[in-house]
């Protein structure tokens, strides 16, 4: 118990003193997760919109598949992307394995489904009357789509934040595609896994506190954009 208490104090010290290793890993985590989220947004929002605004055969099935992918274990995504990026894989020539760029690819693959699904849910949450009002007031089809997306902005923002949260906190892709190379691909989650197994509990705890804090902030923001602070 003492050890945990002392470890906690030391961990807080590491954070407050802006320990270079802690800062380095945190910044890298944020940059990689933010990049993945930005790319995933440009993929998920248009695809979600296409699916929502078009009626086609098998639409329900497609949405079901997307929703199933939400809970895909991160290690299976890691494995899939590993196979794709490995030397003998179809994209081996790009040399992305064990690079931050490779991690971005993996995290993007990981969060596109949930962001697409949540985009569809966000758009479905807009009342039919909004479309009616827009069209009645003279909106063209595309203007109406734009308006509906605008009405869904809070829920879409929440989708983006949730995607970012998943990218930041996942460990499978970061470990398997990034390889946890110090100063290069080591991020919060992989560093915690490594340092804990090596016995540097204080360092792990410092990173853990940061990770939990960021997740908390993201969740608060999700609630904030949905119009409620504490929910």
């Amino acid at each position, binding site marked *: 118990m003492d050890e945990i208490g002392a470890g906690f104090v030391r961990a807080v010290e590491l954070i407050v003193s802006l320990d270079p290793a802690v800062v380095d890993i945190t910044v890298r985590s944020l940059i990689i997760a933010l990049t993945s989220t930005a790319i995933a947004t440009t993929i998920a929002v248009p695809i979600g919109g296409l699916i929502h605004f078009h009626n086609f055969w098998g639409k329900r099935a497609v949405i079901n598949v997307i929703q199933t992918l939400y809970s895909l274990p991160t290690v299976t995504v890691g494995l899939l992307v590993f196979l794709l990026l490995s030397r003998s894989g179809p994209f081996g020539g790009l040399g992305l394995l064990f690079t931050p760029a490779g991690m971005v690819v993996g995290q993007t693959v990981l969060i596109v489904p949930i962001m697409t699904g949540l985009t569809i849910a966000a758009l479905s949450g807009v009342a039919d*009357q909004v479309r009616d009002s827009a069209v009645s007031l003279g909106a063209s089809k595309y203007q109406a789509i734009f308006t509906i997306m605008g009405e869904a902005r809070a829920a879409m923002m929440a989708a983006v934040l949730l995607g970012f949260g998943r990218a930041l906190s996942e460990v499978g892709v970061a470990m398997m595609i990034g390889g946890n190379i110090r100063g290069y691909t080591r991020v919060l989650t992989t560093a915690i896994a490594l340092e804990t197994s090596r016995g540097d509990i204080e360092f792990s705890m410092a990173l853990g506190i940061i990770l939990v804090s960021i997740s908390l902030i993201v969740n608060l923001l999700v609630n904030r954009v949905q119009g409620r602070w504490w929910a």
Partner: protein
Amino acid sequence: MIEAMGVRAVRGGGEVLKGVSLKAEKGEALAIIGPTGSGKTTLLRILNLLDPPGGGRVLFDGVDVSAGDRARLLARRRMAMVFQKPSLFNATVEKNVSYGLRVRGVSASAIDGLVGAALREVGLSGWEKRGAFGLSGGEAQRVALARALVTDPELLLLDEATANLDPRTTEAIEALIRRVRDDGMTVVMATHDLGQARELADRVAVLMEGEVVVLGTAEEIFDSPGSEEVGRFVGGRRRQGRSLMIPDRTSHP
């Protein structure tokens, strides 16, 4: 101006419009009265080209606009509709009122003045920056009316625009309808408020179970309803004042 020719509609497995034909001439105010469920909303939505007719045609200025995206859009931009339940966008009053102008590509410099004038018309001067979601039902309906009128439509469609509103707002909206009608705007209004139909409309169409059973001037219909069926709805009630509504079909023997 606007004409329904044999318009049919099927909703939820039942035929709710059974070949409706009616026409509003330019500058005319036409009321469509009928009990709840008689098909008024369905008809107005088809006239506003929001839903396609399940049969028959809709003519706008003599041109068939029931088919073709482009024709529909252009015709729709010459009309405006106010729904029974105002559905405002989650934005400021200003953004709501300017919407029709913005989608038509009206210049930003012209928009402010037009929005201000439209808000003045509905008695909401200076409400530009308020959030639309914080408004009461009556205020929201005023904004919906300003939003419809700001584009200066040739045809105004009103679907029970004053149902469920307080008397003051109802009066204000009725006064405005009277004014735009007198200015030459064509108005088609669904209502189950007989007094309102009598007061505001040049002609009245009585819709029952998806059919126009009588179409005539307000005097003709209220003074000599013609059929027993219509008489039951409009006759004997008019002495009791303007606020009396047609009873629901369900409460009818």
